[in-house]
């Protein structure tokens, strides 16, 4: 894809204001999520104590340095200091860590309050903080699955499409087997057998997620391999691997780009489902599905547990879908 063409696509994308706005907004949310520690943390960015500077987010200090004798781990939020200590503390906007329990509320889950703007979950942890950290986990999962499964799908699809014939037939049969086996169910079985970690989750999901994109890549390759430039490459004696990845693939990337936002959205939704069933990231990792599960369990008492993670999920998915629509529009304006 030449850069002029790319610029043309980008211009088309920018013309669609809903998509471009969503991209910017999503980028913003993404940055917040990636910098979760800077947004929600129970340690201050920096602290001045008796004329010295401390950076508790980066370094761990022993409470004794601040004259606290009765603790092993420093708690900056309840830190009692005298005026003579000349203390200046700069806290992040949300003063909770995702694993920290709010001990000041009578029972869990606690409703939204000044301390916990979105309430606490059933172990007393701040919901807003966990939503922010959960976004990062979701994005990590969705992005990794997207990349891995697309790599697999591109490999399978391109080889199948380029080779055609018998290899293609066998590949199609294998894919038929793959698609017939219920993917979500199989994933859950495998996760139940192994001890789940997020990386195992990513690998397993990718192993079952590559089929969709391979269809499109295969179709593109079946079309493109008849083109004259491919013939020319072959006449020049180029090796098949080089033709596939250097010559045809760059021309066949349209479906990859157009489906990517939806793939990420699907990944986020999938992880939420897995976490909801308890087969996702291991506790105590913050995750939206786990919050939703708590919301279902405490549906009579804690509406905030289901509502706010749902809103987060809904907003993220909407933004991604809007971006996806924009990309699709940019690449193929006649369909919509």
């Amino acid at each position, binding site marked *: 894809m030449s850069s002029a063409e790319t610029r043309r696509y980008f211009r088309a994308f920018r013309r669609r204001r809903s998509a471009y706005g969503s991209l910017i907004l999503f980028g913003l949310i993404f940055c917040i999520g990636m910098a979760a520690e800077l947004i929600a943390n129970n340690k201050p960015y920096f602290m001045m104590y008796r004329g010295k500077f401390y950076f508790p987010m980066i370094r761990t200090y022993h409470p004794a340095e601040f004259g606290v004798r009765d603790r092993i781990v420093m708690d900056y939020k309840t830190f009692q200091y005298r005026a003579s200590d000349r203390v200046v503390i700069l806290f992040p906007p949300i003063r909770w860590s995702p694993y920290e329990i709010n001990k000041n509320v009578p029972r869990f889950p606690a409703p939204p309050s000044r301390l916990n703007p979105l309430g606490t979950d059933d172990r007393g942890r701040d919901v807003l903080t966990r939503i922010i950290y959960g976004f990062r986990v979701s994005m990590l999962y969705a992005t990794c699955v997207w990349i891995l499964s697309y790599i697999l799908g591109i490999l399978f699809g391109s080889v199948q499409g380029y080779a055609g014939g018998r290899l293609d037939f066998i590949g199609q049969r294998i894919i038929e087997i793959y698609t017939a*086996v219920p993917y979500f169910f199989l994933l859950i*079985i495998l996760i139940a057998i192994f001890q789940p970690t997020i990386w195992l989750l990513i690998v397993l999901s990718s192993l079952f997620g590559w089929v969709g994109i391979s269809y499109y890549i295969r179709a593109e390759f079946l079309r493109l391999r008849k083109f004259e430039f491919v013939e020319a490459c072959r006449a020049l004696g180029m090796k098949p691997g080089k033709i596939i990845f250097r010559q045809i693939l760059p021309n066949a990337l349209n479906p990859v780009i157009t489906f990517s936002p939806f793939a990420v959205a699907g990944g986020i*939704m999938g992880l939420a489902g897995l976490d909801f069933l308890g087969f996702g990231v291991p506790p105590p990792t913050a995750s939206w599905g786990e919050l939703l599960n708590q919301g279902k369990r405490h549906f009579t008492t804690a509406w905030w547990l289901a509502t706010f993670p749902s809103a987060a999920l809904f907003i993220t998915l909407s933004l991604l879908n809007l971006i996806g629509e924009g990309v699709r529009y940019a690449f193929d304006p006649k369909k919509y």
Partner: protein
Amino acid sequence: MKGYFLRRLLAIIPTFFGITVIVFIVLNLAPGGPVEQMIRQIRYGGRAYRGGSGLSAAVTVACDTGVNQEIIESLRKQYGFDKPVILNTRIPDRRNSGIDVLVTALMTFDTASENPGIRELNQRGTVLYPVLIPALLDERGSDTGLLELIARADTGYLKRHAESILSVPTALATDTDPDGGLKSKIEAVSTLFGTVFELEQSRQSEIIRRIKIMQWELSHPSKRPGRGFCNPVSKVFLDVIARHAGESAVSSREQLAVWWAEFQEKTDESAILENLKAFGRGDMQAEENLMRAGQLAVPATVSHILNLPPRETQPFLDLLSGLSAGKFELPVPGGQPESNIEILKAWWGDNRLIYTEISRPARLLMAFTHTRYGIWLKNILTLDFGQSFTYDQPVIDVIISKMPVSIQFGVISFFATYLVCIPLGIAKAVRDGSAFDYGTSILLFLMWSIPGFMLAILLIVFFGGGSFFSLIPIGGLYSDNYFDLGLWEKILDRIHHFIAPLICYMIAEFTTLTLLMKNSIIEEISKDYCRTARAKGLDSRTVVLKHALRNALIPIATGIGGFLGIFFTGSMLLEMIFNLDGMGLLGYTSVLSRDFNVIMGDLVIISLITLFGNILSDFIYTVIDPRIDFV
């Protein structure tokens, strides 16, 4: 076209084969195998799980804690853990068959033998020998004769032949047969029978042999032979006890006493104990030592029991149960302990191959069928998925019983979706670009970003009678008082319970289907034939509904086949949230409880339905639009 679908249908066979391979691999990935998982599941609450791998460990665990032997045997059979995984290269041929195997087995007592027949026999223990001896003496012991003998080998038979069995040594003494082979065979047999019948004469050699076996067992703790049946020898032993005790004895304790008196006259207990001690296992204080001593310790234990006051007898009977790994029940005189013939029949079923001749093609076939995978596949093809231990009934029955719920929701949500989406799509297409189109598009777009299960949770939280409104029930198919209601109220109750899940089922496909419909109509309207129709003066309503709609439905129709999966299998997440007792919930709970048989059955059936659904959607495609050609 017919040829294409024929080929597609035929392609189901290899595809299904592939699916079974995947399911098989997944099931075999489970650490320790499904058998171990299930046993652990059955006996949780018992002693701490001892590590180990494979079936042997599982069986050891089971023996320790008294998990039902039958369960383990059925599991073992079902998963074919006595067989190689994919390819069986150890199909016995003629050289190893028949009497020779038995004789070698009897004489060598090599529990680690290369020959599976010999190994098998030696692992099965001496319970078979009384049956086999007449066959050996009778030189006509052909394969079929042997089969009959084994089939008839109940205790009654043993009793009738007891005399001939006991007279073996005598026969040996008088036998001047020039065939030294037979003589040595009988010699070997009689040596073996010394264990039980003539301990005095052959005690020394017998004990030495036993000790050798035990040494082997101790050095191969994971491969203890015969743990599956756990010492059938003691069964023989008990038969002998019963016989010696005679019919006159009244209670089991008295029987024991009578027999023991007789036994003591013939043997001296101290010699056994001395040998046990010499082997370094002390007396019977420690359970572990007794386990190692095997049935040799039984007489000593019996003696001890008899010296105890009656109410202290029970722990030692339990001890004996541990030794023989079955319930230690003293046989009632004249009664028929049925398990003997059952054991022998099962044994013959498993080992028939060793004693019958197999043709070359049959052997080739067996290389594939006589494997874990082969047996498993055969069971699946006959829809035999085994027993579900959580539901305690055959898996296929469980699955069928869960289907109606999933089908109800599948069918209704399918029709409801199409009933709403198609008119909506048409309306949007006709008013393309209007405020209505724009507004519904936004609405549809928002719905697209709502996962069904999230909506389900929100519905329950907000309308399920928790913090806000109480409009919908929180789950289930009907209310608790359903069966007291009148017909009309019943229908209303069902609908009341249906609404919330239905909305969540529908939301998944709603947006894509509506927009597909809309785009499809727009595309058709812009085609020449529609323009012609309008140029002829037809009003646009007729053009859309009569001309364009038919063609526009083609892409929609392909979705029908894909729906088949949800039709039958439901949605795991939604069924779980709304507590609908369907296939999805079944899958979820069986994964949680590690009910591997149900998981396997569920996987295979869902896959099959999906496969047929794919073909169905292609088929519908061609039926609606004959121009489409897949060939």
